[in-house]
């Protein structure tokens, strides 16, 4: 039993073969080795040769030559291609040239930082050139106070993280005067992670870093690395606000790799339901274990890791000790043990979250299984990159879920192989992110009139400074802005969020409150409203109260088997229109908008049957979000074309001539009482509601049958209407667009909001689909999508056309609603109109 037998089993056994929608064999690749450049210090070359390094891969040589010429560089070659050498050699070479020189390296995670320290120490020790125990050191929250001053004074190669730079180093730069005065290189590893809110913070952090460097009269070079994304140069340049050159062609050797997409079989073709990812991954893992091939299984969530690990151990009791879970939250000691076990082969299979995706040294495994698409191509490639030990052949399997994105790739695997479309976007000038960094910068060094902050010109900067003068933390004296406040601004915000308020989630047990989590204010309104069922770590709680004065949600135990779902009403108000594109089918607007959301009620839903137990009204404050978005307004021509094909479901209803009589009879039948809340009222104030929506019937008579009608008060009627999801072309397309957006922009599902309205007040009562950034003031996601709308629509169309479901499914236009309404036909037609025009 071995690797080859596993491959042939997958290829030949119909049980597996039939679900494989893509199989690609990448041949092995030999290395493109270049001699050491002549300018490299001969002692360094000599030592490298002694370590068995005979030359440099072409990309390494290219990178260090560019760095030697003074260029800023971003290296984007694959996982395990030896990217670290690209900055390690220039730093060491410089140190041999001038022993005072320093370098600052920052890494997104602690684990990565310590791995890099080890790697650096190996090279330093191996080259045996500089004998100084403090030459390279990690400076982070875990560094003992006793070591800190030694590090500040003696360390030449400093490894840290953005948070430490923000809180510990920049606001104390005078303690690092010597370090900054000799700073030659700044290394930023894995810049693709610095996107969105986090990336926008990092952009500002680098502005501050450069400002401090300027004070010490140095202008260090930037060396960056990135996973493959659509726009590495753009991202790098946005981060460091300077020219950056890319090193892209990978010269490292690779073993043969097979990449397989495994699309679990449909269980219900009409509804588009597939076998679950967990069950499938479990089956495939068992197969891999049976063939004695070492493997890594990546899961999306920590809970998933636990479930799968438990199941695999149960099914394979004799191998239980060689199967391990790996995720954040495990003890450091246990994690090291698992890493070691993977390296020495004593662990056969590890089930992990993205905790194992970055950096952590585990050598390589023979097979990687991905339980579901990880959300971005660069993440997928990093995970796949874990396969392949030295240059042995290896296998990677992607198990696709029912999500539209997964199914898109199952049918269009070429997008996974080609250069990705996804862009990493940042917006350092987002006012909520910029403001706190201007405070920190003013704390670090007074601002002088006419100064710029990165690319932010003085005219814009001065607005912020004046604002801070008004707030009382800055004082404007003789051409300078001085920080005159007792506070320490870098402590007041996190690099990973905007400045929004947090709500603490507390569990009350025998009078004692224990904080078990937190959510941002806006999410609290729909996640932890009174009565909501809140899930955490597999436990279920019920929210007793939500105190928005103190920002505390109080939970108690929840033992019944129902879940809750908020009903949110949204209102949109465009504030300004920045861009506009018009055709006779649709008008595309882009600009600033105000989204007002209010949780008006929530449904209690039976967990298994999904039956709605009740709809309970709520009184929650409205939440305003000012942000950027684009909205697609459909023209009359477009709607008329749809109507002509009877594909427009959003028109107002004509209930027929007898409606008055029928509805009065129903009220009488129901005793003039709301059948939901029991309120009785005057006849004229009670509504009559169609249980199955009127639009679903071809005949008025059928729709108006007594059984389908019920008396409701206006409030309950509103809630009932809201609770029925009419799948129309509009909502189908909205579902597609928001689900496929991550193809084009690196983002989490929660980064974007969407809205569809068949009669939008803000668009002359025309139908509208709106996509917006859910971060206040936006970070550029909607902006980029707006610019690439054709691309996005094409991908939507591609997916709907390829989906084999009957009338809509979770993998294309959204799940078929309770009432059996799809929307696939309608959405397809609308997409054709939007892409090809009406003629």
């Amino acid at each position, binding site marked *: 039993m071995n690797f080859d037998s596993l491959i042939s089993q997958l290829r030949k056994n119909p049980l597996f073969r039939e679900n494989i929608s893509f199989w690609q064999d990448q041949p092995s690749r030999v290395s493109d080795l270049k001699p050491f450049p002549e300018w490299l210090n001969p002692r360094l070359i000599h030592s490298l040769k002694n370590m068995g390094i005979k030359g440099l891969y072409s990309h390494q040589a290219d990178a260090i030559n560019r760095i030697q010429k003074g260029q800023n560089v971003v290296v984007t070659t694959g996982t395990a291609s030896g990217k670290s050498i690209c900055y390690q050699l220039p730093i060491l070479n410089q140190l041999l040239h001038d022993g005072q020189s320093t370098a600052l390296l920052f890494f997104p995670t602690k684990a990565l930082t310590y791995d890099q320290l080890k790697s650096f120490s190996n090279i330093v020790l191996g080259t045996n050139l500089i004998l100084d125990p403090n030459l390279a050191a990690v400076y982070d929250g875990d560094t003992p106070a006793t070591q800190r001053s030694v590090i500040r004074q003696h360390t030449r190669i400093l490894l840290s993280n953005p948070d430490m730079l923000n809180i510990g180093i920049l606001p104390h730069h005078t303690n690092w005067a010597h370090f900054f005065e000799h700073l030659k290189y700044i290394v930023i590893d894995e810049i693709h992670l610095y996107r969105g809110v986090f990336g926008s913070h990092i952009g500002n952090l680098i502005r501050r870093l450069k400002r401090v460097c300027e004070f010490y009269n140095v202008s260090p070079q930037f060396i960056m690395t990135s996973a493959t994304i659509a726009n590495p140069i753009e991202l790098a340049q946005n981060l460091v606000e300077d020219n950056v050159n890319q090193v892209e062609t990978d010269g490292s050797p690779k073993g043969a790799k097979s990449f397989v997409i495994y699309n679990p079989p449909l269980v219900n073709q009409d509804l588009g339901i597939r076998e679950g990812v967990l069950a499938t991954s479990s089956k495939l893992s068992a197969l891999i274990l049976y063939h004695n091939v070492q493997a890594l299984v990546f899961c999306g969530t920590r809970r998933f890791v636990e479930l799968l690990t438990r199941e695999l151990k149960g099914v394979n009791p004799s191998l239980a000790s060689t199967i391990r879970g790996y995720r954040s939250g495990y003890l450091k000691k246990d994690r090291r043990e698992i890493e070691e076990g993977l390296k020495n082969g004593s662990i056969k299979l590890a089930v992990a979250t993205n905790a194992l995706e970055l950096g952590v040294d585990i050598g390589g495994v023979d097979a990687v299984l991905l339980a579901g698409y990880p959300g971005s191509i660069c993440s997928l490639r990093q995970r796949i990159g874990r396969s392949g030990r030295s240059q042995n052949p290896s296998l990677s399997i992607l198990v696709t879920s029912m999500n539209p994105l997964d199914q898109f790739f199952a049918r269009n695997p070429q997008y996974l192989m080609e250069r990705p479309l996804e862009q990493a976007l940042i917006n350092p000038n987002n006012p909520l992110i910029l403001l706190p960094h201007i405070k920190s910068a003013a704390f670090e060094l007074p601002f002088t009139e006419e100064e710029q902050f990165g690319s932010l010109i003085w005219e814009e900067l001065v607005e912020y400074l004046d604002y801070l003068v008004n*707030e*009382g933390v800055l004082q404007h004296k003789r051409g300078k802005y001085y920080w005159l*406040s007792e506070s*320490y601004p870098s402590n007041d915000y996190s690099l990973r969020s905007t400045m929004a308020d947090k709500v603490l989630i507390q569990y009350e047990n025998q009078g004692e409150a224990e904080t078990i989590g937190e959510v941002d204010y806006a999410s609290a309104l729909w996640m932890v409203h009174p009565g909501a069922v809140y899930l955490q770590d597999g436990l279920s709680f019920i929210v007793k109260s939500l105190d928005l004065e103190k920002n505390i949600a109080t939970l108690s135990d929840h033992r019944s088997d129902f879940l809750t779902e908020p009903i949110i009403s949204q209102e949109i108000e465009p504030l300004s229109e920045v861009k506009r594109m018009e055709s006779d089918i649709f008008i595309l607007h882009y600009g600033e908008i105000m989204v007002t959301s209010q949780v008006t009620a929530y449904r209690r839903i039976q967990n298994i049957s999904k039956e709605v137990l009740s709809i309970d009204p709520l009184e929650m404050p409205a939440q305003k979000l*000012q942000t950027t978005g684009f909205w697609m307004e459909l023209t009359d021509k477009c709607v008329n074309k749809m109507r002509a094909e009877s594909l427009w479901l959003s028109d107002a209803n004509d209930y027929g001539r007898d409606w008055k009589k029928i509805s009065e009879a129903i009220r009488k039948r129901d005793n003039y009482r709301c059948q939901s809340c029991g309120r009785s009222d005057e006849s004229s104030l009670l509504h009559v509601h169609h249980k199955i929506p009127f639009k679903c019937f071809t005949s008025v008579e059928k729709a108006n049958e007594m059984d389908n009608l019920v008396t409701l008060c206006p409030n309950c009627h509103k809630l009932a209407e809201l609770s029925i999801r009419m799948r129309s072309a509009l909502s189908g397309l909205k579902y597609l667009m928001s689900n496929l957006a991550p193809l084009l922009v690196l983002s989490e599902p929660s980064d974007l909001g969407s809205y569809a309205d068949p009669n939008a007040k803000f668009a002359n009562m025309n139908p509208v689909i709106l996509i917006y950034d859910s971060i206040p003031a936006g970070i550029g996601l909607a902006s980029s999508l707006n610019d690439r709308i054709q691309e996005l629509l094409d991908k939507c169309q591609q997916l709907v056309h390829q989906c084999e479901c009957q009338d809509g499914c979770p993998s294309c236009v959204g799940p078929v609603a309770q009432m059996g309404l799809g929307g696939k036909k309608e959405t397809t037609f609308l997409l054709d109109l939007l892409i090809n025009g009406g003629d």
Partner: protein
Amino acid sequence: MPSLLDRLHTLGLKKAAEVSSPRPKANKISMVDAIGSGAKILENQLGNVVIAEKSYPYGYLHGNIEFKDMVKVESIHKAGRLNSGGENLKKMIFLDTETTGLSGGTGTLAFLVGIARFDDEGLKLTQFLVEDPSEEAAMLLEFANQTSDIEAVITFNGKSFDMPLLKSRYVINRLPIPFSEWGHLDLLHLSRRIWRQRLASRSLKDLEIEILNIPRSDDEVPGWMIPEIYFNYLRTGDASQIANVVYHNAMDIVSLAALYMAITKMLDVDLFNQKFHSWDVFAIGQLYEAIGEVYKSISIYEHCLSLMDIDLSKKMEINTRLAKLYKKASNWDKARYLWETNGNNGDIDACIELAKYYEHEQRDVPNAFVWTHLAEANLEKSDIVRYKKKVIKNELRVRKERLEKRMINVSEKNS
């Protein structure tokens, strides 16, 4: 275009707590006028600096401390681990700063640096003030000029606060740091060692009350208000409140000098004829022990045992220390006596020391056995935590078994 303020608020930024942003006042009172006598403006090549001076002649009484010339400072410097610059008190300064915050970092500035030094007439206080943040460099330069002959600095918590902060100010203003070669005696650390047990708080304020006997007047401005007073002065141009800060700083420095005098006195006068609290005497004995003056510390400990106000537990603590010193000096009789006293009062360590003493020094196995047994009994009665108890119990069992074996061997040999 809406203002930035409006934009930030629509973006969800909560309004900051309404700052009482006072307008510039019409009748501005300058720093010099507010401080009054002894204050002047000095100009140097970097700008203006406000200087306030005051003298406290020898014979001046601060609380119960009299400023005196010719004090012996060797012991306090040794005890305070001052490594350089302590040879001549007149080349040392007392220093305290008033700052715009306590958080540290480059955004905190010292707007008042107060120093005091002894000269031929007495203590001379000089305070350097920054009228406007743009004149900080002038102040720093003036401080450097006036301290060019200084060799060491005495502070209260200056090691972790005042001096690093000043250093940072020099770097920010691109000026050479004048004090990188100075020695530094931080009285906070020394006070902690002396009064750790007797006083719940060793803040300068509490030491003033407990040691120097000078409660400050209620109308003095409390320390936490000082940054806000300076910010308000910068906003309004009215320095009338600054005078209170100057007074506060002056008192801190004079108290610092008095505290220095008080500790010097404790270390150098004849302890046996003074009415010191027995705990303080004990603490001083420990200081001498720490700086290696064994005989002095022994005599202080012995004296301490004879004081009236000492209780049993303290006595036992002193016995332990004394016994250790006697043991080092191989003065076994004295050590044995002290151990016996403690051992009979339930001290387990003393019993173990005695067991060791009888076993190894006296080769008296039966007596060693008896003390081991008593250690066990004491252990049973004691309330030390269980896991520790277990460890000691094991050790004692091993010791007892060994001693038993030796006793049997001996009796076998004898029979």
